[in-house]
């Protein structure tokens, strides 16, 4: 299955070109130009990774990140920052972002972070599946009760 990515940045041209480049690399990519639109999409669809700009008009990247972690805690977020300082990126990582990149970023670095973020998400999901299987094996009745 293709890795599903959502790119969130108010710079439409940046979003579109990055989306095209990631699509050429066989990722399934969607774009959002506002924080509100991103939240709307994340509420209704499942993405593996969100590439999120920190500074946006209206709802900024940090607010969007907080919402993502509430709605879909397993979705991994890579923050993009245009600042030379990393304070906002560090704040993002404290709030659960997987990693950050500074604009302009090297494509290889972004791809490498996407792969690692996806591995982390997959491992996490596998552990949840294993825990559920163990629960079923140890107490099959719980499955009956939950259904």
């Amino acid at each position, binding site marked *: 299955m293709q890795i599903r990515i959502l790119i969130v940045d108010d*710079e439409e*041209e*940046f979003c579109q*070109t*990055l989306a*095209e*480049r990631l699509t*050429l690399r066989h990722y399934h990519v969607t774009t959002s130009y506002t924080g509100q639109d991103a939240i709307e999409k994340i509420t209704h669809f499942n993405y593996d990774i969100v590439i999120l700009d920190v*500074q*946006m*008009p*209206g709802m*900024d990247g940090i607010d969007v990140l907080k919402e993502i972690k509430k709605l879909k805690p397993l979705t991994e977020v890579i923050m993009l920052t*245009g*600042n*030379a300082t990393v304070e906002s990126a560090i704040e993002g990582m404290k709030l659960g972002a997987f990693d950050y990149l500074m*604009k*302009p*970023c090297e*494509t290889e670095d972004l791809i490498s972070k996407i792969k690692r973020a996806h591995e982390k998400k997959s491992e996490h999901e596998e552990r949840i599946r294993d825990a559920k299987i163990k629960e079923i094996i140890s107490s099959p009745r719980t499955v009956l009760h939950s259904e």
Partner: protein
Amino acid sequence: MKMNNNINQIGISFFGRVMASISHEMKNRVAIIKEHAGLLKDYSAMAEQGRKIDMERLGRLGKALTEQVVKADDILKNMNQIAHSTDEIFGQVDLKELVKLVIDLAKRPANLYCIELVFQTSEFPITITTSPFFMMNLIWLCLEEMFKLVESKGIIELKLESQNGNGALIRMIINSEITKTDANVINDNLLHLSLALQTAIEWQSADQTLLLQVPVNITGS
């Protein structure tokens, strides 16, 4: 114009904020140019593998690259102008061009507040003698204070009127809902600068308008 440490500190802070905003904007342009260039490289690699390339897309990409370079050049021109505004403490300036430059510089912070800046003036120059750098600082500070008042998504209109040889009047009008009707827009920094530049500043809350009366010449003091 009396320069004291307080005024200098306000000026340094303004310069820092403008430079931060410009560098952020430049980073965005460079990031877009880099992605466009990367996509051209991707297409080139695809062509080498014998895959068909959409020539129309290549043409659009070239056009987009040129447009981004033009935008980056405009940003650098603004940066150059503000840097040179400190060449001399006093100078003769066209206030219309000066306000236009401040609006260009303030577009990015305004955008972060979802605010559009609209400028209205006559086609004729309005020549005054002032401190160009600190005059820009004063107008920028006025706008910053007004940004904080706009509820969400709004327009701030700047109207520049000549006062028939007696300087000029700048009206800054918030054309949308404001958060606090009793807010004190004119803070200490604005007052210090206004005093140093011999301008008269007044916030008319009923009209959501800030009036800035600019003298024609301040070098005499």
